[in-house]
C-alpha cells in the first residue's frame, strides 16, 4: 500500500479509529492491532512475502530469548551469528544473488574460463533492506547487553512490522522503538496535530516535488544520448530533488503517521541540501542508515581509533557498503566510493566535524562563504547522484562527459521544457520554505504557527490545493521501495 494512494487514505482513518476507540483500553490489543494492520499494509503489495517477515521476526525473537538465558560467551556469539546469517542471507539471496552470479561469470570468462550459472527471476520483497537492518540491530544490541530482550512476541512483531516505517524506514533502533510498545499510549492532541502537519508536508514533497521532478528526470536520463549538456545537467538537478522529495517525503509521512498513534520515530532528514560540506551532508541525509552503519559497522571496524589510514579504510568500507545496500549494481558502489572520496580531504584535514549546527541560524540569509560552501556541496552531491540514477557505469560516464562538453553552454532543449520550468519554479519555492523552516524538524512545523487560525488553515489548504493541482494522476511508488 502506498502512502500516496486512496487505499491508504481509507486504511489510515480506519486503523486510527480502531486504535483509539476500540483498543485504547488494552495495550496488548493496541499492539495486536498494529501487527494486523501492518501485515494488511504489507500484504496489500504482495501477501506471499508476509511469511518472510514473520520468519525473520520469529528468528530474532527466539535469538533474543536465547541470549537472555545464555551466559556462555561462545554460545552467545553463535546465536548472534545465526541472526546475522539468517537476515543477511535472505537479503543476499533476494537482492544480490543475480548480481554476484553475473559478476562471477563475467570475471571467469575474462580469464578464459566459461562457467555455466543461471541467474534467477527473483522479486525483491519491498522493504527487506529496512526491516532486516532493524531486526539485526535488535539482536546486536541484545548481544551487547545494551537492551533487555523482549518476551512479548506481539510487541516485538509490532516493532519489526510497524507499518508507517516498515517498507522505507526510518530504520529504527530497538532501543528507541521497542520500549514504546511496552508503554501505555495516551492520545496527545498536539502531537497528533503536528503529525498531520508533517504528513501534509511529506505528501507535498512526494506528490508535487518528487513526482514532477521524476517525470523530467526520467525523460532526460532515459534518452540522454539525444540531449545537450545543459539539458543533462537539468536532468541531474531534477533527479537530486526527486530523490530528496521522494525519500524525505516518505520519512515525513512515516514519522507523522507514527505520531498519530503516539510513537516517536527517529528523524531521517535534516535539510541535507543546505549542508556546507559532505560530512555535514551525511549527518543530515538518511540519518537512520548513516548512524546504523556508524554503530554496527564503522565502530566495530575500529572507527577512528586505529590511526589515520585505518580510519580512511573504514570510511571507504562504510561508504561502499552503504552504496551497495542501495542496490546490486556497480553504479551504487561507485556512488558510495565517490562520496568516500569527497569525505577524504575533510578527514585528512580533521575538518569533518566543523559544521555541526544549523547554517546561518537565526539569520535570513547565509554569508557569502556559507552560500558558496552550500553550492559546492550540493554540486558534488548532484554529480554523485548521476551514478546513482544511471543504468550502468557507461551510461553515467557518457552522461557526465556530455555535461562537461561545450554543449553545456547551449540552452536546455527538450519537448517538455515549459513544464520543466514550472517544476523548477515549484522546486525553488519549496527550497525557500525549507530554508525558512530549517530550524525545525520539518519545514512547516512552526511556519506561521503564531498567526491566526484562518491564515494557517489557508496556508495548509493551499498546500493541499497545489498537491491536487500538480500531483501525477497515476499512483507513483517511492524510489526507496526498490532498495
Amino acid at each position, binding site marked *: 500500500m502506498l502512502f500516496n494512494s486512496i487505499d491508504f487514505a481509507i486504511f489510515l482513518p480506519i486503523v486510527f479509529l480502531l486504535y483509539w476507540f476500540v483498543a485504547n483500553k488494552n495495550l496488548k490489543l493496541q499492539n495486536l492491532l498494529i501487527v494486523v494492520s501492518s501485515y494488511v499494509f504489507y500484504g496489500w503489495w504482495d501477501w506471499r512475502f508476509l511469511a518472510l517477515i514473520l520468519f525473520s521476526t520469529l528468528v530474532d525473537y527466539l535469538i533474543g530469548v536465547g541470549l537472555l538465558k545464555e551466559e556462555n560467551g561462545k554460545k552467545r556469539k553463535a546465536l548472534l551469528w545465526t541472526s546475522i546469517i539468517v537476515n543477511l542471507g535472505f537479503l543476499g539471496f533476494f537482492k544480490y544473488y543475480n548480481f554476484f552470479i553475473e559478476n562471477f561469470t563475467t570475471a571467469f570468462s575474462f580469464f578464459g574460463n566459461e562457467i555455466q550459472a543461471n541467474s534467477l527471476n527473483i522479486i525483491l520483497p519491498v522493504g527487506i533492506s529496512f526491516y532486516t537492518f532493524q531486526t539485526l540491530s535488535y539482536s546486536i544490541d541484545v548481544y551487547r547487553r545494551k537492551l533487555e530482550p523482549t518476551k512479548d512476541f506481539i510487541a516485538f512483531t509490532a516493532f519489526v512490522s510497524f507499518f508507517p516505517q516498515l517498507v522505507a524506514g526510518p530504520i529504527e533502533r530497538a532501543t528507541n522503538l521497542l520500549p514504546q510498545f511496552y508503554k501505555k499510549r495516551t492520545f496527545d492532541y498536539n502531537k497528533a496535530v503536528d503529525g498531520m502537519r508533517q504528513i501534509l508536508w511529506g505528501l507535498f514533497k512526494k506528490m508535487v516535488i518528487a513526482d514532477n521532478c521524476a517525470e523530467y528526470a526520467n525523460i532526460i536520463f532515459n534518452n540522454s544520448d539525444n540531449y545537450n549538456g545543459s539539458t543533462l545537467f537539468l536532468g541531474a538537478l531534477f533527479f537530486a530533488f526527486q530523490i530528496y522529495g521522494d525519500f524525505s517525503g516518505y520519512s515525513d509521512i512515516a514519522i507523522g503517521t507514527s505520531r498519530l498513534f503516539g510513537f516517536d520515530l527517529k528523524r531521517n532528514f535534516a535539510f541535507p541540501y543546505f549542508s556546507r560540506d559532505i560530512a555535514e551532508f551525511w549527518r543530515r541525509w538518511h540519518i537512520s542508515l548513516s548512524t546504523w552503519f556508524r554503530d554496527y559497522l564503522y565502530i566495530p571496524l575500529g572507527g577512528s581509533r586505529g590511526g589515520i589510514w585505518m580510519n580512511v579504510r573504514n570510511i571507504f568500507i562504510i561508504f561502499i557498503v552503504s552504496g551497495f545496500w542501495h542496490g546490486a549494481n556497480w553504479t551504487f558502489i561507485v556512488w558510495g566510493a565517490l562520496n568516500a572520496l569527497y569525505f577524504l580531504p575533510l578527514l585528512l584535514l580533521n575538518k569533518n566535524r566543523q559544521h555541526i549546527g544549523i547554517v546561518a541560524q537565526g539569520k535570513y540569509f547565509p554569508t557569502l562563504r556559507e552560500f558558496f560552501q552550500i553550492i559546492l556541496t550540493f554540486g558534488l552531491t548532484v554529480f554523485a547522484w548521476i551514478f546513482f540514477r544511471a543504468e550502468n557505469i557507461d551510461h553515467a560516464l557518457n552522461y557526465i562527459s556530455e555535461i562537461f562538453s561545450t554543449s553545456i553552454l547551449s540552452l536546455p532543449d527538450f519537448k517538455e521544457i515549459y513544464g520543466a520550468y514550472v517544476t523548477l519554479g515549484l522546486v525553488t519555492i519549496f527550497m525557500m520554505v525549507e530554508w525558512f523552516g530549517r530550524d525545525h524538524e520539518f519545514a512547516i512545523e512552526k511556519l506561521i504557527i503564531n498567526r491566526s487560525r484562518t491564515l494557517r*488553515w489557508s496556508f*495548509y*489548504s*493551499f498546500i493541499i*490545493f497545489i498537491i491536487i*493541482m500538480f500531483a501525477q*494522476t497515476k499512483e507513483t511508488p517511492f524510489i526507496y521501495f526498490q532498495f
Partner: protein
Amino acid sequence: MKKFIILLLKFSLFSLVFYSFLIIFWGRFAPSVLSPNLNFTYIKYGFTNTRLNEIKNFKNIDILFLGSSHAYRGFDTRIFDEAGLKSFNLGSSSQTPLQTEILLKRYLDSLTPKMILFEVSPVTFSLDGVESTLDIISNDKNDFNSIKLALKQNNLKIYNTLFYSFFHSFYRDLFDEKKYAEDIKKGNDTYISGGYVENQMKYFKYVDYPEIKWVFNETQFSALQRIIELVNKRNIKLIFIQAPSTSSFYKSHTNNLEFDERINKYGIYYNFNVISKLDDSLHFYDAHHLNQNGVEIFDNDVINLLVKNEFIKRE
C-alpha cells in the same frame, strides 16, 4: 481525541470551501502550464459543444453514429442524407464506451434512432477514457451521471474539471452565453450540421510503424456490455463497425484478429479495414483518419452493406 476529530472535520470543511474558491479562480485565470490537473476543454476541439447544442433539433432519426474521431470524421451525414437516411453523428474526441454509455443515457430517448452504427476501434478499447471524459464534462451539461463517471474513473483531472465545469456552466448562463458560441470553422476543420466534421483535403505521407500489440482496457468491454443492454431494451438495431486505418498503421498491430474475435461475440460487426478498398496515400490524411475522398468511399461501402444485408431498405 474528540477535540482532534472536531478539528479535522472543521479543517476539512474549511479546505473544501478554500478549494472551491481557488479552483474557480485558477480555472479562470491560470495558464494551462500552471494547471496540469485542470483540463477544461470547453469549445477547444472536436466541436463537441456545437454537436451537443444541436442534438435537440434531431428526433426520429434513421441512424445514430457513435464513437471517437473515427466516427465524427468518418460518417458524413450528408452522404447518408443523399441515400435517404436521416442521421446524427454523436461521435466525440477519443470517445470510449465509458463515455458512449453516458451520452446514450442522456440522448438516446430524444433521438429515437432506428439503428445505431457504433464505431469500435481497438484504439478506444485500449484507452482509460480520461481525455474523452474531460471533453464531455467540459462541453455538456453535467448531471448525476457525470459524477458517477468521475467516480468510476477516479482521476484528479476529472474531479477538478468537473467541479470547474459546474461553476462554468453557471457563470456562462448567468453572464454572456453568446460570447462563448463556438466557431464552426477551426483550422482545417469545418463542422457540418448533423455532427460530422470535414477536414480540409490533405494526403497521408507514408510512415513505417514499428510492430506493436494492443493492450485492451477491460473496463471498456464492460461498458460495451452495458451499452448493448441499454440499446436492446429499446429494440434498436446495433451494428459495430471498425473504420479503416492506413494499412501501415493497421498491420503494425499484431493482435487485430483478437480484437475482431472479441467484438464479434458482442453482435453484428464489420471491420472495414478488410472490406473497403482504400489507398493509404489517396484516402487518408493521417494514419487512422480518412480524408474526404476516403470518407465518400467508406460511407458508400457502409450504405451498400446495410442495404445488401437488408438492415435498411432503399426506397
